[in-house]
């Protein structure tokens, strides 16, 4: 199992920082990946670093030693005729070639293991095989997130609730410009593009609260696009679904258009919806492609964040 190997390597490499990691669970994500995808990404990071250190530590040491040894007035012998050496040439080309060769293998393996659409690590994962995947449709608007649970007929904005131990299949699109979906320590990134559909599959091992945010700059509301991700046990998830089905507001396409108006979520507001238009995801893609869902942004939206103009476009 590579996990043990990785933890060991991590312990050795980052031992000086380990104290911090224990003190705050949310610190260096390196020590707390959750679920096979995040874990394998970190595993490849360690493999990569260890392989590179084989070449980088001696190279740095050699450079510093040579500068010291052959400094003018030092003890090194001066020999200007030393200008070529086949042995060193073989070494200089060969060692990087070997390291890059080894890394290429891991690049290949890793690209397949954590591929966003069809990650290899989920194909052999018992938890992923045991349960039916949960479908979630993700739509970004100008600076808000909408997560639709089609089978449950509910939706959640600016907050995400996920069950533990169940594979999650996401479809993603944008109603405005490109964003980038990412949950720290849980799942790697994928573009969220207008008029297009991308996919993300992942699985989470244990409950907790995490941070999701957009990593592709999308305009003035970008910094406020972070949201909480609650990973909960199966029963709790079902409890939340039941509650949402009973209390949320209906989400028709018309209501969505209103939701998609440029809005900076400065107050970190969240919304719960039910009775979600079953075709909403496809409708958004079609409307964006035909140019019927565009919200022209004002020219100087945020010059003064206290102004009435800005308040109209923010949740404060």
């Amino acid at each position, binding site marked *: 199992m590579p996990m043990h190997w990785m933890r060991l390597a991590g312990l050795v490499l980052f031992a000086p920082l380990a104290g911090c990691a224990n003190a705050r669970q949310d610190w260096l994500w390196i020590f707390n990946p959750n679920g096979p995808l995040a874990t394998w990404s970190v595993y490849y990071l360690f493999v990569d670093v260890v392989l590179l250190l084989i070449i980088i530590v001696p190279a740095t040491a050699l450079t510093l030693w040579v500068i010291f040894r052959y400094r003018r007035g030092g003890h090194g012998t001066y020999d200007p005729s030393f200008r070529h050496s086949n042995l060193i040439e073989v070494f200089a080309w060969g060692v990087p070639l070997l390291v890059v060769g080894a890394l*290429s293998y891991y690049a290949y393996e890793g690209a397949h293991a954590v591929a966003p659409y069809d990650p290899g690590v989920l194909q052999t994962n018992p938890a992923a095989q045991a349960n039916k995947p949960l479908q979630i449709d993700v739509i970004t608007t100008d600076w808000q997130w909408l997560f639709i649970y089609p089978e449950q007929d509910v939706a959640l904005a600016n907050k995400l609730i996920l069950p533990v131990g169940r594979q999650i299949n996401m479809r993603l699109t944008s109603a405005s410009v490109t964003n980038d979906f990412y949950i720290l320590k849980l799942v790697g990134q994928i573009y969220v593009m207008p008029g297009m559909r991308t996919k993300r599959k992942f699985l989470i091992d244990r409950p907790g609260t995490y941070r999701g945010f957009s990593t592709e700059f999308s305009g003035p*509301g970008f910094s406020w696009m972070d949201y909480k991700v609650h990973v909960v046990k199966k029963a709790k998830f079902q409890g939340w679904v039941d509650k949402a089905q009973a209390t949320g507001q209906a989400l028709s396409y018309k209501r969505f258009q209103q939701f998609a108006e440029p809005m900076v979520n*400065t107050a970190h507001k969240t919304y719960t919806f039910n009775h979600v238009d079953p075709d909403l995801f496809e409708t958004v893609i079609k409307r964006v492609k035909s140019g019927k869902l565009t919200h022209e942004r004002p020219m100087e939206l945020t010059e003064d964040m206290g102004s009435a103009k800005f308040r109209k476009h923010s949740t*404060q």
Partner: protein
Amino acid sequence: MFVDVQGPWNPWIGRLGMLLDMEYTNPFIFFALVLVVVGALAVAAYLVYSRRVGWLWREWLTTVDHKKIGIMYIVVGLVMLFRGFFDAIMIRTHQAMAAGTSSPGIMGAQHGYMPPFHMDQVFTAHGTIMIIVAVTPILVGLMNILVPLQIGARDMAYPFLNAVGLAFTVAASALIMGALFIGFFSHAGWVGLSPLTEMPSSPGPGVDYWIWAIQLSSIGTTLGALNIIATILKMRAPGMTLLRMPVFSWAALGTNIIALTSFPLLTVAVSLLTLDRYIGTHFFTADGGGNLMMYTNLFWLWGHPEVYFVVLPAFGMISEIIPTFSEKTLFNYVSMVFATMAIAGVSWLVWLHHYYIMGASAGVNTFFSIATMLVGIPTGVKVFNWVFTMWRGHVRLETPMLWAVTAVLLLIGGGMTGMMVAIPAINYVTHNSVFVVAHFHNMFLIIVFAVFGGVTYWWPKMFGFKLDEYLGRWFFWLFWGGSVFVFVPMYVLGFLGMTRRLDFIAHSSWLPLLLFQVVGIVLYTASVLVFLLQLYVSIRDRHENRVTGPDAWETSRSLEWATHTPPPFYNFAVQPVVHERDEWAWRRENGLTSLDTGTCESIHMPKNSAIPALLCVLGLVFGFAMVWRIWWLAGVSLVGVVIAVIVRGCIRDIDYTVPAAEVERIEKDRLTVRDDEVARQPAPAPGDNAHAGRMSG
């Protein structure tokens, strides 16, 4: 017209009417305006007072001399580097202020002191300026000065074209500076993220400023690239075979092949975006059949070769500095040349690594990952060859060498983080984090370190005196400290999950690291001040620091040191003949260092021209008119450009001959100055040579 624009438009002043609604209350912009206006007035007053306006026009603004053009490129680059650095100060201090939901906000911002609209412009301007009009011009300037000298040519293949390239670069810089005061700059990132740059998301003139600045400067760079390639291939001195060429010239060849083939792609990508914004096409929109990823592809198909375009000359400079200060020839020269060209070749195969996360298949990502890592092989070879150049040498840690050696150490670190983000599995979690930002700043620092090393190294060749060594060391150590304090915390922040381009930072736990970065910025600021002081002191004491021989460092190796320091306008009194790879070192070993050539022959030189200066003004006016959609003015200036080019094509009197007697007189003067060092002859006065003033039109 064509596309409906927000805000007022009228046929005479275009969109300029919107300026009436804008509030000019921001103290930073006011400060910058005062700085620019006072600076410009002071320079103008000095020129008038010292009666140097005519001199400036004859000797500099109309010159086609590659050395003067190169110096002007470097001056423009340094000024814009300064501007880009101001933006960096603002980004770092703002982020440190805006960490945590309870962080205070002033001047219209909820957190920190810049609302997103302002902050977004600052980081966009920082990126655009640093790459397009700071680093690129400085490197082009150094290549301009050095390539003809290193290969034994009298000037570039196309001296006039060279001046035109500079003219457009200056116009681009001026346009970006104009955006600071007239309207606003793009807030869509320096890469021009599509469709964020399209009309619905960016209705203001900011993106248009970005578009026309890029267009103007890429014309300049493309023309420059063409010129340097032709110069290297056709103008080498007798005996200067390709495999005797200094590695810096090889780097210049490789880098300009990259530029000539990649910059047109940028022009095309940005032109298509221009059509989207100006006449309502749908190349990169989400609707109307547009494909926004096509823009990303085209941009990075230029953007990644551009990375190697800027890094190769830096490698070339390191390859010149290390042998000089190790008193030993470059180790494994042929291998080094091959590595340079290999990097240039591979640069074309890697662009997709900027967006592994777009949803491409694992196969596609693997291909680009391996291609990217291949770059590591020739780069590793270079590091080894530099180290073995110092091996069994006499290493002198004078300032140029300090910069160069540190650049090598930075390359080891930057190479490591580059190999990390090159792997898709890792990239999925580090993409767009500040870890990536720290990585590419680490790589750009290599260039900056090499540039400061190169400027210190070749400064005496350009001006005839050395820079102050003591202050140079202070500058180096402060700059090094700033780099450590800014970018080591940035790497760590990347691992914590901090995204780039944030205006507001939700997590106050990052504050200590952000404050470390502010300490770094303070050190950087101190280093910049010391650099300015170093320039002042060095120029003040130029007579004491005067270089007496042709070779300022006494152990230099290549051909540019085999002429006077600074070189006369014709570079070499007689055409040099090259015998060896390290020609100047060979001459030194064989006692052939005398510059006394005896009888001289007449020299054929290009005449000055006022047309490049005119093109600069017309280009700037055209860019400005297009930004504000003042169609008549754009039309007039464009017609002006076409007419100016046609007029130049009709001028036949573009060159002249310096008579042999005149060359002999100048040579004798130069040699006497050398002998009379004790008498402290003043530096060559402006207008020393009458020929530079000859105009062709």
